[in-house]
């Protein structure tokens, strides 16, 4: 058996040791901020939360292959890791969760985790599942027509592939060979409904062949594998070779949302299996083994991240809520 070292793997995908540390930091930040928002929900400060836990590698690995502010991203609500990598700060995320006037996504109008940040190329989404997919095709078309070399990356879950939006959007992009990456995080469930009741084929990526584009399955809990696959798909898109459908196999380790009780439909043994494949300890172990991280610096990093979130929360809480008086349409006639 050939064992590849972390350094070899990094070199293979064009990354340096420093990138590995950066990726790890994004994973930790995503997890810690996600935990904090979940806790704020349990404390009654945030009415609704959509956790990312378990899917961080798929999110961080894919977003790391994009050019922030240049490429366009259409994240789906679970994509905390995507928006952080693309440049949203913990403060901005918390301003949205707490419905503050300074929330960059919507000034407190939109649900949390319905990300939007024009400057960072993050396009606002709405609650109906999968509806961002045709938008993404149109955005990629616009980029092409304007001669820009930006790539559009559209994120969604496996459940979204049941929607006609998915099929119509992917087909449109394929027909016109648009510069786009369709990135599916397949966590095996659409809320309580298992994959077998969403589709009659084993892989979302298999849909690609019907539309005449490449489709690829990747281990969504392996941050480097996700990065590598996305990098290649982004390259293909930027070079004019059209769309790719990527499927990251992963698992959400928490309930669907703060309103859900996943024990009703998931076997605890199944959850435990995936806990054992948690992408964070897995990448940490790789870094430790490669000598890119040691225990003290790991603890220091985590403390630094928690301090950053504490500070962001204090700042967010000190800001104002939006004012209905400033909204002419709220004045009744």
């Amino acid at each position, binding site marked *: 058996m050939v064992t590849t070292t972390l350094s070899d793997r990094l070199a293979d995908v064009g990354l340096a040791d420093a990138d590995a540390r950066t990726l790890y930091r994004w994973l930790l930040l995503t997890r810690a901020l996600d935990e904090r928002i979940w806790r704020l929900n349990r404390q009654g400060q945030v009415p609704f939360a959509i956790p990312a836990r378990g899917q961080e590698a798929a999110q961080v690995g894919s977003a790391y292959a994009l050019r922030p502010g240049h490429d366009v991203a259409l994240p789906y609500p679970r994509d905390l890791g995507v928006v952080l990598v693309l440049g949203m700060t913990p403060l901005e995320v918390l301003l949205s969760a707490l419905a503050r006037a300074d929330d960059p996504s919507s000034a407190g*109008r939109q*649900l949390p985790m319905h990300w939007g940040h024009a400057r960072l190329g993050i396009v606002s989404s709405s609650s109906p599942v999968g509806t961002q997919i045709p938008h993404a095709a149109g955005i990629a078309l616009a980029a092409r027509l304007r001669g820009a070399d930006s790539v559009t990356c559209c994120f969604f879950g496996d459940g979204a592939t049941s929607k006609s939006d998915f099929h119509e959007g992917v087909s449109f992009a394929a027909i016109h060979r648009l510069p786009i990456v369709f990135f599916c995080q397949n966590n095996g469930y659409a809320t309580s409904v298992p994959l077998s009741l969403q589709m009659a084929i084993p892989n979302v990526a298999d849909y690609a062949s019907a539309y005449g584009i490449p489709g690829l399955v990747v281990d969504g809990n392996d941050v480097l594998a996700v990065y590598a696959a996305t990098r290649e798909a982004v390259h293909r898109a930027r070079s004019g070779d059209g769309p790719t459908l990527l499927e990251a196999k992963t698992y959400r380790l928490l309930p669907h949302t703060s309103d859900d009780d996943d024990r009703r*439909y998931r076997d605890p043994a199944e959850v435990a299996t995936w806990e054992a494949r948690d992408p964070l300890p897995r990448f940490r172990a790789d870094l430790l083994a490669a000598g890119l991280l040691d225990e003290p610096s790991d603890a220091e990093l985590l403390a630094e991240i928690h301090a950053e979130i504490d500070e962001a929360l204090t700042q967010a809480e000190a800001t104002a809520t939006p004012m209905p008086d400033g909204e002419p349409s709220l004045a009744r006639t």
Partner: protein
Amino acid sequence: MPEVTYRQALHDTLRDEMLRDENVFLMGEEIGVFEGSYKITAGLLQEFGAKRVRDAPIAEEGFVGAAIGAAMLGLRPVVEIMTINFILLAMDQIINHAAKIHYMFGGQSRVPMVIRTPGGGGQQLAATHSQNPEVWFAHTPGLKVVAPSTPADARGLLKASIRDDDPVLFLENLALYNTKGEVPEDRPDDVLPIGVADVKREGSDITIISYSRMAAVAMHVAEQLASEDGIKAEVIDLRSLRPLDRATIVDSVRKTNRAVVFEEDWRAYGIGAEVAATIQEHAFDHLDAPVRRIAAAEVPLPYAKNMELAALPTGQHLVDAVHATLDASGGVRGNGRSNGSKGQRSASRG
């Protein structure tokens, strides 16, 4: 009569109808193992099996279309759409197909299906999770639309909807699920006719016309108006938005000479606009004041709590509208009160 929740009434009625008629089956997202987002289908998968309680993929247009097909062959699908916001994905199937097949197929096939779905805001779920677009369906010939406000009406109208040979949109409301009321025991005659409004409270001073959750709020407001101000408000719960029971509305306004419509949808082109037009057409000479409408602000419902509260119609808005209407028409008859208390009221509004 036992007191049950609106949720329980819906659940029990679905079960009774499934036991009564084997052609009745359920289809929707998360209705099986998960028992529905709002637990209306609790236990039904276990009792009736996957053949009659079918989890659908996230494909609203697809499974509503499939339900239409099944209904055309004589089954009686009861489709659950998680919230009315997601029904928009299935609009073509509902408006262009369910509503028209009977007519455009020369009467050779009916579409006996029900689509159950909750509307309503107030849960901080923001604009695409909190809408009240029932008027779009009520606008459409070929559909029936019911919107009960009490557990008993929910039971009677769900029975009627399932037994009806036309497509029925059965509107529920998130904030009503936990409300309680008396419900008659299962009887063959507890089917409520579609298209009949209910005078939920009699009164002689003013008519409040409402439906769904707002009708429940209107009942509280009417009680408060009676005890605090001696105002006798008549409350009409429309229950059915299409067909609309115009006679009950008109008869009441001819008696009270004043009307306020209280609705959770947007004001422009809303249910209240149709009600006001009906009153104008059939009771114009009886009106002592213009018909007032209390509805949601013309804005996508915002997430921030204070903004959401500012956008939604409240009982206080209704209280103010009733007083304003009475003030505009000489106050309450017979009890000596008049419009003199205006300043005091606005002071207490805070």
